[in-house]
């Protein structure tokens, strides 16, 4: 068995053995379901068979939920000392970080899989744009990958879970809207740079159904960068 998968499997077990997974699933489905179907500018106002509303809601719920899943990943191992046990086994630091990332990613994917009935429902009501919907889901997954990676990095620099949570949110706030705001209030090449850095810009174009390699490269590169930084943090602290 691949060491990455061994770590991921244990993490997933621990998600489902504790209440973390269930709370996460219920809260995510509750929030996104409520705002998609029942409240405010919900899905019936759009007057077209589209999951755009849901993608907008999930974009925000995941932003808050992912740091809550990732905060304990490495911080807790450090606090209890189990990191010492892990790092003296025959796995590399990278495999450890990847395993943690994979476990979180799978949990988020499970949560997203539970929203597939939304898709089926809307598709049965009207003429849904399948391409845009799939691309919207891909966008959510890519975004989750970024935030998980950021969250694990935050978790790797401290042994305090609260600090890890807040730090992940702080970095998330920059990606989620501060860069976008700065881009909007500046002009020229500065605006251009911040626009490129803003996660929201890239997410919006994907969730509209435009799968551009530029966007995919953006998401993947931040994910990889976060994983490499976490690995570095674990290796460095000696």
């Amino acid at each position, binding site marked *: *068995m691949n*060491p990455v998968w*061994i*770590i991921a499997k*244990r993490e997933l*077990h*621990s998600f489902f*053995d*504790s209440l973390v997974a269930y709370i996460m699933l219920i809260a995510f489905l509750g929030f996104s379901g409520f705002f998609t179907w029942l409240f405010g500018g919900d899905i019936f106002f759009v007057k077209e068979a589209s999951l755009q509303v849901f993608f907008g809601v999930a974009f925000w719920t995941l932003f808050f939920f992912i740091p809550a899943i990732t905060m304990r990943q490495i911080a807790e191992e450090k606090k*209890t*000392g*189990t*990191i*010492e*046990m*892990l*790092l*003296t*086994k*025959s*796995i590399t630091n990278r495999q450890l970080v990847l395993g943690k990332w994979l476990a979180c990613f799978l949990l988020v994917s499970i949560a997203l899989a539970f929203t597939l009935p939304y898709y089926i429902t809307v598709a049965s009501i009207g003429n849904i744009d399948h391409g845009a919907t799939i691309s919207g889901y891909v966008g959510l997954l890519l975004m989750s990958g970024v935030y998980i990676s950021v969250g694990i990095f935050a978790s790797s620099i401290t042994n305090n879970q609260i600090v890890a949570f807040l730090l992940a949110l702080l970095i998330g706030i920059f990606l989620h809207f501060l860069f976008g705001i700065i881009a909007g209030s500046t002009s020229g090449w500065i605006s251009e740079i911040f626009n490129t850095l803003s996660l929201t810009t890239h997410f919006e174009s994907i969730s509209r159904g435009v799968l551009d390699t530029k966007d995919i490269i953006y998401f993947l590169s931040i994910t990889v960068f976060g994983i490499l930084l976490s690995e570095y943090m674990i290796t460095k602290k*000696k």
Partner: protein
Amino acid sequence: MDISIDRLTKSYGYQKAVDDISFKVKTGEILGFLGPNGAGKTTTMKIITGYLDIEEGDVLMNGLSIKNNNMKGKIGYLPEHNPLYLDMPVIDYLAFCAALQKVPANLVDERIKQMVKLCGLDIEKHKKIGELSKGYRQRVGLAQAMIHDPELLILDEPTTGLDPNQIVEIRDLIRQLGKEKTVILSTHILPEVEATCDRILIINRGKIVADGTADTLRKQAQGQQVLQVKIEAPNRDQVFHALHALPSISTVDFLEGQEAKYEIQSVSDRQSNHDIFKMCCEKGWVLTEMVPLETKLEDIFRELTMN
């Protein structure tokens, strides 16, 4: 596995935790690591396991440097505070460790069974680790360290938290393992080192201050033979002077509060037993006791590590 530690140095800030240490351990040897708190025992062990990076010097295993060879799969390690996943059942935890240490899938069950039996975990094996007492957690820690049948076992204070019966069991276990494997263990408990280890290494402030078997350490520390004798004779002073006159004896002391007892130090490299006996025969005194005084390991330890 033969381990060779070569001029190892590691510092935390300005403080040198390990300062230019060199030693070798051969296969089938149990090395006891002794030292006061903060002497550098744990740091040295962590470096050997690869958890801490080498700052200066090198660690060679079977001649290969751990800097560019990954040896983690050949090492079994029980960390000092024995960190465990408290939310996992014992069996699952052992399976997890076995998988991480690349035990072939078809052997995992067999290995777990052996470890459970060896470490006496049978009645607790389905419990979550968090529900176990300290002694049982320690056994789980030992079981995970040995699950992949490592060539080198590094045990950081393996018997803490165990009751006297368990301590004896674990010592037996370590001694048994030590026949084929290399074992390095650290401890504060001095009788434990004598009971389990082939060789003792005393380390203080990051430096090795003594290296050898318990017997050689004693000889080194003692230098001269010390005897406690009881000679029954009419006059104490007479005995004292007679003893003093013997060429093989350097000092004689009365033992306070004890009738007819004397503490005698021989001249270095000479034994005075025979002379004393002959003298008593000649004078017609009765020699009722003659006890060679051994320096205790505690004394050696204190002498070497007190500053």
